């Protein structure tokens, strides 16, 4: 199988890569671009650990082909902080102990940021349902939901 050249934008920077037609965007990010923040927890869209933004919407990168990145705007966890300034969600997650092993955290942060951009003042139930596709096995979700709400309040106030 020949590789296909793809031009795309990742975290605001132009990027180019070659990939096979059957490689997922997740494979490309991790294996070809060195962006290992997105994780493969299942490869079937059931865990959300591979979440990235594709043209302004949160997706499972394991369910997107690498070639579909052509001309698209992709945002990954690596682009969430601004230099050394963490995004409020990132900072609050640390402060509120909303992560334990941390492997689900990149996916949850990307998904939570997408939620707050769409709905800056969600109820706990709305947060829980939005994040239903992001499995966490360590925390029982409690501190994650609280952290999202604390960050949301701060982002509304700021």
């Amino acid at each position, binding site marked *: 199988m020949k590789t296909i050249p793809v031009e795309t934008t990742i975290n605001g920077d132009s990027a180019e890569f070659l990939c096979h037609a059957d490689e997922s965007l997740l494979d490309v990010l991790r294996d070809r671009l060195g962006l290992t923040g997105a994780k493969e927890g299942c490869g*079937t869209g059931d865990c959300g650990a591979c979440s990235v933004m594709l043209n302004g919407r949160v997706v499972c990168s394991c369910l997107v082909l690498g070639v579909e990145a052509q001309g698209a705007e992709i945002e990954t966890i690596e682009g969430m902080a601004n230099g050394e300034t963490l995004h409020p969600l990132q900072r609050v997650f640390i402060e509120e102990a909303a992560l334990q092993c941390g492997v689900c955290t990149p996916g949850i942060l990307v998904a939570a940021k997408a939620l707050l951009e769409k709905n800056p003042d969600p109820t706990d139930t709305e947060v829980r349902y939005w994040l239903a596709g992001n499995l966490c096995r360590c925390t029982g979700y409690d501190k994650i939901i609280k952290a999202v709400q604390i960050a949301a309040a701060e982002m509304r106030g700021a």
Partner: protein
Amino acid sequence: MAFDVKAERKFKVVGTRVARPDGIDKVTGKAAYGADISAPGMLHGRILRSPHAHARIRAIDVSEAAKLAGVKAIVTGADLAQPEDEAFADVAINCLARDKALYDGHAVAAVAATSKSIAKRAIRLIKVDYEVLPHVTDVDAAMKPDAPVVQEGRALENVPAGMSQNVTTRYQFGHGDLDAGFAKADRIIERSFKTAATHQGYIEPQACLASLGNDGRGEVWCCTQGQYMVRANCAAALGVEESQLRITASEIGGGFGGKTSTFIEPVALALSRKAGKPVKIVMTRDEVFKATGPTISTSMDIRIGMTRDGRITAGRGELRYSGGAYPNETVDMGAQAAFAAYDLEAVETVGWNAMTNRPKEIPYRAPGAPTAIYAVESVVDELCQALGLDPLDVRLLNAARKGTRSSYGPTFNEIGLVATLEAAKAHPHYTAPLGPNQGRGLSCGFWFNFGGNTCVSLNINDDGTVGVVEGNPDIGGSRASISMMAAEELGVPYDKVRTVIADTSSLGFNDITDGSRVTFAVGLATIEAARAAIKEMCGRVAKIWDIDEDAVIWEDGCAKPAGPNAGTHPPMSLAEIAAIASNTGGPIAGHHEVNADGAGVSFGVHLCDTEVDPETGATKILRYTVFQDAGKAVHPDYVEGQMQGGAVQGIGWALNEEYIYGEDGRLQNAGLLDYRVPVASDLPDIETVILEIPNPGHPYGVRGVGETPIVPPLAAIANAVSRAAGVRMTELPMSPPRLLKAMTG
């Protein structure tokens, strides 16, 4: 080492909520987990697995696969050593089968190739000649004399003659006169229970990058709960010396016991040795379900007698566990834990293990206890219902206390069960009103907690910061807690201490991160190492001040004269002492090696409110509160996190998680779609109440907390459902089809 009475002191760092050292790396995606690194020239490994639950492997033909361009090495079980030690041999055979495939998913061959897709194609070209054998996946069926035999000659001597060869072990615990005890009871209830196997469900599949030369020297990067365990297993499986292998633990994306053994590292090393290149293997999710280490599946009988005012007079349990296709001792712990919460005159538990054609069980958070305690707590609850007694009062009446002779032998020291029960009783959750189709349940829970082999090295850096080197992968925030204990002991701010986890070449042996041992044992060793460093620093200062060593004390992070007789000397801070270390004798360090004992047991009580939809059997968790004794909560956020996380795993176990096997002995739900772990919208907030009854065996009173919280939810939910739906569920999970059937008959 004993609880430090002077630690009735006011803690300055321990007990506060500091930021964890790996936080920024983890929220920015920088942290490197098992699958996140690569090496130049690395090959990709892929494993071929048996599609049969039980089969003799007559021949493996790799010739077609070897011809495929890009394939650099192929290995089978013959490429691994045959360790003499049974435990190591079982691990090696589990990594690559020898003469038999013992379960659907058992590894039979592996390939290393220049790309993932070539490796994938190559394993499909390997031809395995299987002779399919009859299989058995149910524990009770496996114990029948005519059951298909999974492995021959594995039974221990105490297994009675005439039983199936699948029965490998028998345990018995207890004391007192059962018959007399039951005779005193006003009510006796006897129930049988069955539980399906579950999986730890860590979000990060196993992954490793391994390199092994012909000279027997090798390196492995892997996600693991124990780099020393990996080293030992790999050395045995590859026939090389342990010291020649350097194992580095990556950040770990969840373990819960499921990464306390090796599944792929020996295979990657064997491939690497053959190919002369590093080999990376990453398990797929379905491989994780099929071929790592799920829990035991169980069949249990419990019989308990109670007087009309709630006193348990006798309890008997028979636990039949299957730990998959190998001998397994988890039923030992289940049998010990089953009645541990109670002060009983007459108690007996008998535990059996039987092999089945299922993957090799390894621990999952309090292994053996959740199912056993689910059964016991269900029967206790049913007795309360039958006798019209308050379930909390009955627990309080029978609770184990200091001085109780436990059901498994030892006499309890200070324990926190009564405190947690009283806290539950006083909590508003216990008396909150309930609506239609709603019910409240509770359960006690218990875990032994362990100490174990531990090494810590503590270095005073010349800039006045402190480096702690320990050997236990951080699965719950332990680096922060270790740093806190070092900071506390040394009297320096938390942010002056950095704790790192060593590879196997950089520190002495450490037992795996399990048994809720790290905050306890590594903490204890850290405190001792800090004290050793303090002694060294005081010695240096004594020389400077020209006074006796014992005239120098350590207080608030400084060396000070012990009293006016020692002379007038301004205190010297750690930083000041460190700055001149090379003039006073050289670099300053402390270290400690120990096989720690004195771990304190941790009791918990969970309260749960459920609502059951009478037309569908769907169960909603309305409210959940966890009460647990932490001894001393070093970092309260992380203690809460353990309580919440463990509780939710237990909720999943109770409601929906199960290994589903078909008639063909194959696993039907090897994915996260149909292996149903709780999602965020399934749950309410999990409220936590931490009790602190100090453990006399630790200088700060620490008890392990990680495992106890998974134990109570199974019965708490079964008991709540019993009151919400009017049916008692004796089979787990209590999935809606089972619950609806029980309700509608």
